[in-house]
C-alpha cells in the first residue's frame, strides 16, 4: 500500500456504537477497476452501500445535488474513493469543487489512482484529500490495498452531511 499519511477527517472512534454505515462512493471511469474494487471490498467483508460514478461530472451532480441523476441525501455519511484521470471533470477538479462547498467538504476523500506523480500527490493533499493511494499494478498488492481501505472504512467515523437540517425542506 502506497499511502503516505492519514489526512484530516478520519477519526478513529469506538466501534461499539456504529451509526448506520457510511455509503462508499467510487468515482472510477474504468469498469474493470470499479469491478475489482467492489470485489476486493466484498472479500474484505465490507458490506457498506456502494455507489459508483463513471466520471467527475456525475459525482459532482450527486454531491451538489444537481442534474437529473441521483442526489446525496441529507443526514447521511459518505466516504469517497476518487480516481484522478476521469472524463469530463478530473479528480483534482472534483476535489477542488468539493472543498469549496461548506458541507460537501466534510466528506473524507481517499484518492485512489494509478498515477504516482509527486506533483499530483502534493496538489491533492494541498486541496484537502484525506489519503492518497497509488493503485498497485500487482494484483496481490492491489487486493491488499483495497482490503485495508475496507477495514479503515469500517472503523473510521464519517461525518454526517447536512446532519442538522434534515427537518428543513431540501433546497432545489
Amino acid at each position, binding site marked *: 500500500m502506497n499511502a503516505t499519511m492519514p489526512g484530516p477527517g478520519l477519526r478513529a472512534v469506538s466501534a461499539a456504537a456504529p451509526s448506520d454505515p457510511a455509503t462508499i462512493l467510487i468515482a472510477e471511469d474504468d469498469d474493470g477497476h470499479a469491478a475489482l474494487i467492489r470485489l476486493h471490498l466484498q472479500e474484505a467483508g465490507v458490506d457498506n452501500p456502494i455507489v459508483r460514478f463513471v466520471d467527475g461530472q456525475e459525482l459532482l451532480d450527486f454531491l451538489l445535488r444537481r442534474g437529473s441523476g441521483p442526489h446525496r441525501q441529507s443526514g447521511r455519511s459518505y466516504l469517497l474513493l476518487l480516481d*484522478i484521470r476521469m472524463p469530463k471533470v478530473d479528480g483534482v477538479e472534483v476535489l477542488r469543487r468539493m472543498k469549496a462547498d461548506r458541507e460537501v467538504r466534510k466528506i473524507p476523500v481517499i484518492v485512489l489512482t*494509478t*498515477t504516482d506523480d509527486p506533483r*499530483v500527490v502534493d496538489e491533492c493533499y494541498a486541496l484537502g484529500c484525506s489519503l492518497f493511494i497509488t*493503485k498497485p499494478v*500487482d494484483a496481490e498488492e492491489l487486493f491488499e490495498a483495497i482490503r485495508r481501505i475496507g477495514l479503515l472504512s469500517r472503523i473510521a467515523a464519517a461525518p454526517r452531511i447536512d446532519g442538522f437540517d434534515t427537518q428543513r425542506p431540501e433546497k432545489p
Partner: protein
Amino acid sequence: MRERTGDPTASSAIRRLNRLLLLLFAGWSALVVGLWLLHEVRPDHSPGGKDGRTDPGENPAYPGPDMMDLGYALLWAVGAAGLWLGGRQLRGGVQERSAAVEAARRNEQAVRQSRAMLQLVMDTIPARVFWKDRNSVYLGCNLLFARDAGLRTPEEIIGRTDLELGWREQAELYRADDRLVMESGIPKLRYEEPQTTPSGGRIYLRTSKVPLCDENGRVIGIMGTYEDITERKLAREGLERERTFLRQVIDTAPGFICVKDAEGRFVLANRALAEAYGTTVSDLLGKTDADFNGNPEEVAKFRREDREVMETRSPKHIAEERITYADGQTHWITTTKVPLVDPDGTCTRLLAVCTDITERKRTEEALEKTEALLTAAIQQSPSGILIADAPDVTIRVANPAALGIRGRTTAPLTGIDYREHSRNWKVLRPDGSPYPSEELPLSRAVLEGAVSENVEAIIVNEDGQKRWVSVNAGPIRNREGRVTAGIVIFSDVTDRKRVEAEREELLKQLETKNQELESLFHAASHDMRSPLVNIQGFVRELEEDCATLAVCLAAADMPADRRKTCDSILNDGIPTAVRFIRTSGEKMSSLINGMLRVARSGRASLRLESLEMSRLLEAVVASLGFQIREAAARVEVDPLPDCRGDADQINQVFTNLLDNAMKYRDPTRPLQIRVTGRAEGCRVVYCVEDNGRGIAPEHQSGVWELFHRLNPREDAEGEGVGLTLVRRIVERHNGEVWLESEPGKGSRFFVALPAAE
C-alpha cells in the same frame, strides 16, 4: 720721498741750529705733503672717484663729499707756502752766513713762524699724523690724532706707547708694523686696519707708515698717517653684498639671463647660460654666441634677433627656438629680448631672458602623439563613438562607425547641442518609446555626470531601419573634477539581438515540448497502468475461479477422457497462459516505471554543493550492502577528490553504476569493483571499474540509451534505465560520462564532474 737735504760742512752752532730748524721745517712740510699725496691723491681723484682702488667700471656713481676737495686745496696751499718759506730761509741763511747775530735773530723769528705754521698745518690737515721713535714711543702727533686717541692736546701723546692708548687691543698689531717698517726701511702704504675708539667702538683706518732717517740714513723712528675709512668701507661692503646678492639672483634663476652689446658680446651672463655653453661666467664675458654654439644657423638667428631688437628698440618675444648646448644637445627655449636704451637715446645693449622649455616641448609632443593615437582609435573603432562638450552636449566628434550605424542623412550630426539631438539622432528605448534628448546616455553623462553601462537602445536611421545598440556612456572630467565633456560608445547588437531572440524562442519551444513530453509520460503512465491493473487484477480472479472450478469438476461425474482434457486445461493450459499474462504485465509495469523515473530526473532542481565523495561512496556502498553480499562482490573505494553536485542525484549515479556492475558480473569469477578518482584541472574524474562481462565495442554507445539491455532474455529484472539516468544526471551537472570496456575482462565507467570550490 725721503728728505735728503743738509750740509755737513757747517761750523757755527747758531748757523747749525738755524739750518737744522730750517731744514726741519722744510723737510716736514715736504714730508707731510708728499706723504699725503702718496696716501690720498690717486690718478683718478676726480669728483666721482674717491674710492680709487676699486674698478672704476663697477661703481661709476659713488657720491663723494665735496669737503674732501676743500681739504686738498688747503693742503696744497699750506704745503706750497711752507716749502716756499723754508726755501727762502735756507737761501737767506746760505747767502748771509757772515752776519751771525742778525741771522740768529732772524732765524729765531723764522723758527717761531715755522713752528706756528707747522702746528697750523698739522692741525688743519684732514688726516691723522703721528711719529714715534725707534721703540714705538710717541714723539708727537696732530690734533685729530690726539682726539682719536682720547687725548685733549697733541702734547699729551709724547712719551706714550700704543699700549697705553684707547686702541690697546690693536697695539701689538701697530707696533709690529712699526718694527717691520723700521727694520726694512721700506714704507708700508695705504693698508687697512681696525682701530678701537676711546668709546670702545670699532672703526677702520687706511694707514701709511714711513721710516724716519737721520742725515746718515739711519732709521731713527717712524712717521705715520691714517684716515678713517669706516663709512667708505661699510658702503663698499654694502655694495659688495648687493652685487653678490644680484649675482646670486641671476645665477639662481633657472633660465638664461644675459646682456649683449651691439656686437653681440656678452656683457653680463648668468651661470645657467655659462653652464649650457660649457664655460664659466667670467669666460663668457666679452665673447659671443658664435664662440660657444656649434650651430651657425642658431647663432645667425640670435644675431638677427639681437639687431632687430636694438634697431627697433622694442622688446621681442620668441615663443620657441632651438639652442645647441656645449654638449651638442639641442634644447628648446622661449626667449624675451629687451633693448637697454641709454639716457641719451642710443641703444647698444640688450637684455635677453630665456627659459628652457624642452620638457614642456617633449610633453607637448607626447600629448600630440597620444592625441593622434586616440584619434586613430576613435576613427578605427568598430563601435560608434560620439564625444560631446559641456555644457550643451554639443557633439564634437562622431566617428565613422557612429555615422554608419546612424545611416546616411543630410541632417547635421555634429556641432549640434542636445536640444537638436533627438531630431537628428533618433533613439528609442527598448519598448519603442522615444528617448527625450536630455535622458540620452550622452546627455546624462555631460549634464549629470552619470555613467551608463550596457544600456540597450534602438537607433532609427533615415530609412526607418532600426538598429539595436548596446550603449556605454560616461563623463569626461578635468583635473578639478568638473565635467567638461562626455563620451558615448555604442555597438550595433542587432544581429546578436536577433540571434538571442531566436534562441530564446527556441528555448521557450523546447521548454514547452519538454513539458508536453512530461505530461505525456505521466498521462501515458496512468493510462498504461490502468489496463495493467485490470489485467493483473482479473488474472488473479481467473486463478481463483479456476481453483473453484477445479473443486467443482473434481466432484462432478464425467467421462475419463473429458476429465483428462479438463485437467490438462486447468493444470497446464490456463496456468501457463496466466503466467505469461502476469509476467508480461509485470514487465510492462517495470518499463513504465523506468520511463517515469527518466522523465522525472530531468525535472528535479539541482541543489549544488561541495560533496565529500569518500563519504558519499561509503553511504552508497552501505545502502547496497544486501546486493553486494548477494553478488559476493568485493568493493574497494580509493580516497576520492571532492566535487560539486546535488547529493541525492550524485548518490543515484554511483548507486546505478555499482548496481550495474553487480548486475552484469561474470559468473565465472568473483566480482571485484574498484572506485577511483583524480583531479583534472577544474573538474574531477571518477572511475568505477569492474571485472565483469564487459561490453562489446559495437554495444558501447548503446548502453546509455533508454531500455537498452545487453541480453534481454537474461536481464529480466530492472527497468533498463540505470545508465540513461546516470548520463542524464551527469550532463545536467555539466559533466561527462564515457566508458572503456573489453568483453570478458571488465568495464571502466568514467564520470567527470566539476571540482569542489
